């Protein structure tokens, strides 16, 4: 075990990154494991919650599968968008680059995943699924998605923390990461555990949305509640992230810009819906 160059700073504990663990001699990624556990928990919770609509387990499974597909595609596409300069470079120099370089470059550009892309991809999948399958009503599906998303994110961020791919800024307190195999340069410095903080925020948001779901408050609009709460948490937490690879535009990260857009759109939708409902009520009274 290697001693850490702590310097003057003190950490709560020394954390050794475990991006991969050995199970029966087989290397397994902790991020994938956490994501898998998150998906399994989401499916179980969604199955219990769907008794209200008398949806079968198969319907929930297919619904979760559709969301999973949307999540994968959306997350990778948005990551590719943040690497747009490299993608443009590859397509501009197709004749000069070798086939191996093109393939490796494209895999590198679309290999990562961004949460907001996954979220939007999952949302698109919900709309497509409910259009072609009538097993789950759309408003109920959106409510279910609002409950499942923060729950999955709780496990996803724990996976990120163990993975050591994204990390917090240098701070006066926090965890001192060591043995980070993915990025050894960030090891040995006390950093704020921003992924764990985000995981905690997601847990709180999940509990709020679940409570509203169980008490049948804001039925059909729970996604709006989620989209009002999470972007605020994400916007603030982004300032404490130490990895700048996700793209910085005009001083704010891609996720912060998306947070602003989602919050504004949701607020505008809620205000517009309230005004429209009031006008409808007034018109009904006049009749």
């Amino acid at each position, binding site marked *: 075990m290697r001693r850490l160059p702590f310097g003057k700073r003190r950490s709560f504990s020394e954390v050794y990154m475990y*991006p*991969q663990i050995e199970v029966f001699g087989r*290397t*397994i*990624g902790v*991020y*994938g*494991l956490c*994501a*898998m556990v998150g*998906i*399994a928990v989401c499916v179980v919770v969604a199955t219990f919650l769907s008794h209200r609509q008398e949806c*079968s387990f*198969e*319907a929930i*499974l*297919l619904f979760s*599968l559709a969301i*999973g*597909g949307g999540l994968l595609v959306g997350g990778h596409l948005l*990551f590719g968008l943040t*690497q747009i*300069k*490299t993608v443009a*470079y*590859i397509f501009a120099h197709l004749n000069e*680059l070798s086939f191996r*370089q093109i393939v*490796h*470059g494209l*895999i*590198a*550009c679309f*290999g*990562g*995943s961004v949460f907001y892309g996954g979220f939007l991809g999952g949302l698109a999948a919900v709309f497509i699924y409910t259009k072609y399958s009538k097993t789950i009503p759309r408003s109920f599906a959106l409510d279910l998605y609002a409950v499942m998303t923060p729950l999955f994110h709780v496990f996803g961020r724990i996976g*990120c923390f163990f*993975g*050591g*791919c*994204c990390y917090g800024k240098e701070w006066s307190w926090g965890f001192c990461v060591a043995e980070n195999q*993915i*990025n050894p340069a960030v090891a040995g410095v006390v950093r704020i555990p921003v992924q764990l903080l985000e995981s905690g925020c997601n847990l709180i948001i999940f509990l709020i949305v679940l409570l509203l779901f169980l008490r049948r408050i804001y039925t059909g609009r729970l996604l709006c509640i989620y989209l009002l709460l999470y972007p605020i948490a994400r916007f603030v937490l982004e300032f404490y992230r130490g*990895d700048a*690879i*996700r793209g910085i535009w005009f001083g704010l990260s891609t996720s912060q810009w998306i947070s602003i857009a989602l919050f504004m759109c949701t607020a505008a939708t809620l205000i517009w819906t309230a005004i429209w409902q009031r006008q409808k009520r007034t018109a009904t009274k006049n009749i």
Partner: protein
Amino acid sequence: MNDQNFNTNDQNFNAQPPENYQQPSPFLPPPQDSGKGFSIAALVLGILSCILAWFYVANIFGLIFGILGVALGAVGRSKARVANAPMGMGTAGLVVSIVGLSLSFVGFLTCTLCVWCVGESISSALSV
């Protein structure tokens, strides 16, 4: 003995139908699909997914087979339920596909861990 049987059958053949007998309607609903084909396909794809999950590059195909297996298994099971047919094959296909999908998913994400390693490979793959 055979002749007797033959005669008996002949008699039955020549027997007149009862008076209230009605010709079966040609527009009867076809027998309901019990989804057995879907269930077998799910089982096969699930087993393939479980096998391919073990290999690093092939687990991408394991992931695809697992997704297809779960979808087909769910459809087969729901069809069997509607047709009041046994759901054992569908359940087996679904369970095996879920296991294969999980293993392939974890295996797939073991390679493409997260943003950083991808960022590192960008600089190594291209000198942009």
